[in-house]
């Protein structure tokens, strides 16, 4: 299957790979997995006092599209509020990366990772 140039770019030069301390109260961690392909994705957001995402890191074990989707998301969420971040949809991701239909679930995984991270943050703040 042919990957788009953007997917290849993110795959070869993934942005923001790594981890923050998940026990840090300002860190939101989203863990998600796709049973169909066995991909595992961890997205972490570092959130400032004003509720703005200051930094983001990810680690994904999966195919090129899953890596590219999560790498792209770390770029997109920076500077957004957590509510704005949850407005990012899988369609936005799939369009930007020109994902073929069989790889749409990779973009869904990345969208779900944002939602999981935000809900982790909210439960930490509660």
């Amino acid at each position, binding site marked *: 299957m042919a990957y788009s140039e953007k997917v290849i770019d993110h795959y070869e030069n993934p942005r923001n790979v790594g981890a923050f301390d998940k026990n840090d109260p300002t860190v939101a961690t989203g*863990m*998600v*997995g796709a*049973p169909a*392909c*066995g991909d*595992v994705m961890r997205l972490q957001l570092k959130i400032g006092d004003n509720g703005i995402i200051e930094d983001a890191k990810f680690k994904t*074990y999966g195919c090129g599209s899953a890596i590219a989707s999560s790498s792209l998301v770390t770029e997109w969420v920076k500077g957004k509020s957590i509510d704005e971040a949850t407005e990012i949809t899988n369609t936005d991701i799939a369009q930007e990366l020109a994902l073929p239909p069989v790889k749409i*679930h990779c973009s869904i995984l990345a969208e*779900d990772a944002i939602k999981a991270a935000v809900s982790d943050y909210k439960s930490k703040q509660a």
Partner: protein
Amino acid sequence: MTNYFSLFNIPEKFSIDLIELKARYQTLQKLTHPDRFVNASDQEKRMYMQKNTQINDAYFVLSASVKRGEHILDIRGFKRVDEQATHSDNSFLMQQMMLREQLSEATDEVSFNALEDEVTTLTNDLLDKVRNGLDSHNEAGHRAAADALTKLKFLAKLGEESLARKEQIL
């Protein structure tokens, strides 16, 4: 939907005798093989051809543990979540992440063996959960079995990747 256990005339259980299954498959395969019906009418040929295909499908499903477990849930009318749905059991996923990291750092026989042992232990534990859940014949048991079947897919993938990396490195 067709109950593949009835088709093979074996009890509808998660634990099955794979040797017996194979023997029954071979018998049924021969009985319905197209070569036996060269002189039959077109309608009969079609019928046996369909039967033969169904027997192959059934064997494919029953001989693989995850597919067999899913089939039992399906024939009991349990609604499984879509395979495309995101899995979000946090502690399980963290463990998966850790094992993938361990795999990416494995460079010698010892580290691969340790990882494979761990995958085997986790797999057997999940297979027990599937078996117990399905044997219970109740909703809670079916839910537990479905959850364990989903988790087994991640472990299967990990096992495949471990094998591929091992071949590449060792």
